[in-house]
């Protein structure tokens, strides 16, 4: 008989019991394994084990041209592909010193906020389902479907969109796209009311979330929480407002902060963010500038298909970019953006060639996962599910 790994059979201390949860467990949102040391039903210690989804994306990036890395970034955090695209593109654009035209920036903001709504809807549905409320999932996925259709309209893909490219966007949005988004945005606040009707005042939901898995502001900072997990503990930070990128300084929005630091506070922060995001979408639609969607940098940005058929130069540039890539000046940048889960950072090091020397992703899920051990100490086993749901992890982002 094959031997079990030592970590599966280690005994607890002082009459405690080791209980294993995952990696195949429906409420771990992927392949997370949690090893719990319990005394009765109370958690004494908890240890998350990750790595089951490690695909070595950082290593793969080093063997690709800069523009070939964009599709890999989609696959890291598959619930917010556009945020990953944006963060990587901004980092490389910073290395290149590229100016992005306003229209491209505004469409990036628009798509990014739709992505945030998309991601929060998946979180809301699955989190509520973990706590026993099945209906919310169906409601959320109804709206998420519309956002996936927008993805399909602009990029041809429902999930792995790779819509943002270094220097701008892949394509002009199709005719009628903005009208459809406008219609969705007008109807969305009423949908958020629907979700809130089901959950916010629901006594069972409140009992499962209020005062559960508390995290103080000091602990949240020390253990590296980010995004709504950090804001739910009363730390007021949002990179869209505090370190604006991609033209976010032109938009007005509030940053929801709660001081309770429990599961319910994180829930409220995210639901409020849904409303703020739809406000940003409305502003982006109302003020959408005219102009090109790609930077004026023929050596970096692929030329239009039409130009390639008529202009010799465009054809040469296209051939060069595809076969040789483009050299990026030596240097290093750390670009951080506010993803639905918190601070997502890309650290890109260039040695002056057409392939990145090193690409490192700072995943918000990876950072937030460390706080689970702290917030679950002394809680009941049943609340571990609520705690894991409340930090909204994506294991693809954790393991990369």
């Amino acid at each position, binding site marked *: 008989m094959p031997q079990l*790994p030592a970590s599966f059979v280690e005994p607890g201390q002082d009459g405690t019991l080791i209980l294993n949860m995952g990696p195949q467990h429906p409420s771990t949102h992927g392949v997370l394994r949690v090893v719990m040391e319990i005394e009765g039903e109370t958690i004494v210690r908890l240890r998350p084990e*990750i*790595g089951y989804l*490690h695909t*070595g994306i*950082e*290593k*793969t990036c*080093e*063997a690709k041209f800069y523009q070939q890395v964009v599709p890999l970034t989609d696959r890291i955090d598959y619930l917010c592909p556009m945020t990953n695209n944006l963060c990587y593109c901004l980092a490389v654009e*910073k*290395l290149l010193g590229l100016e992005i035209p306003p229209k491209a920036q505004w469409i990036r903001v628009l798509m990014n906020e739709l992505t945030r709504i998309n991601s929060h809807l998946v979180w809301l549905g699955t989190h509520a389902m973990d706590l026993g409320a099945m209906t919310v999932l169906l409601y959320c996925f109804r709206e998420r479907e519309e956002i996936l259709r927008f993805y399909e309209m602009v990029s041809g893909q429902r999930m792995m969109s790779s819509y943002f490219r270094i220097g701008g966007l892949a394509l002009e949005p199709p005719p009628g796209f903005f009208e459809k988004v406008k219609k969705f945005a007008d109807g969305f606040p009423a949908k958020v009311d629907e979700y809130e009707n089901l959950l916010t005042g629901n006594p069972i939901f409140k009992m499962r979330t209020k005062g559960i898995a508390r995290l103080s502001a000091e602990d949240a*900072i*020390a*253990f*590296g929480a980010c995004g709504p997990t950090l804001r739910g503990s009363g*730390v007021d*930070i949002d990179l869209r407002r*505090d*370190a604006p990128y991609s033209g976010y300084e032109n938009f007005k929005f509030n940053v929801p902060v709660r001081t309770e630091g429990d599961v319910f506070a994180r829930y409220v922060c995210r639901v409020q963010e849904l409303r703020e995001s739809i406000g940003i979408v409305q502003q982006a639609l109302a003020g959408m500038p005219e102009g090109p969607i790609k930077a004026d940098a023929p050596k970096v940005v692929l030329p239009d298909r039409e130009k390639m058929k008529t202009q010799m130069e465009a054809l040469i540039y296209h051939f060069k970019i595809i076969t040789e890539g483009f050299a990026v000046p*030596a*240097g*290093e*940048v*750390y670009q*951080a953006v506010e993803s639905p889960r918190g*601070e997502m*950072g890309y*650290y890109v*090091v260039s*040695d*002056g060639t057409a392939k990145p*020397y*090193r690409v*490192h992703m*700072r995943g918000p899920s*990876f*950072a937030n*996962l*460390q706080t689970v051990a702290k917030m679950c100490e002394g809680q009941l086993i049943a609340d571990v599910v609520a705690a894991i749901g409340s930090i909204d992890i994506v294991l693809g982002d954790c*393991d*990369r």
Partner: protein
Amino acid sequence: MPVIPPITDVASLKSHPALASLLGWNSGVVQAVRFDREELTIWVEKDAIREACAILRDARDCPFNYLCDVTAVDWYPLEPRFEVVYHLLSISAKERVRVKTRLNGSSPALESVTSVWPSANFYEREVFDLFGVRFTGHPNLKRIMMPDDWEGHPLRKDYPVEGYR
């Protein structure tokens, strides 16, 4: 030397809060400074990394209290081969700084900063797993991404992209 030549003009960057608090503590630990693309990088003596991080965290006017990220870069075959990179953020002052330290290729080891920021736990395990840099004083220095019995450290430059077959 790494491809990016560090600029050692410490004097012109003295006013940056991160550099000011490090120089105020012990100017000997700052090896080089570089301000590039709006980002400040400070190279710190390897033996002083934990204390330097503690100084930056507790600085009075601009405390870099949040550890964003720990990672490494392998400059194989150059020596010193590894650069361990810390990205710090000051939540109150909205400032960022990058702290780096260099390590030799033969049995690279460094003091852990888990006592300064508990959040360094996972990041240092990741660097240990993928680069083979050991962190002394780390509470649980085990592989985190790769299986426990894996051989080699995949993000090293002398590790083939396709893996060993």
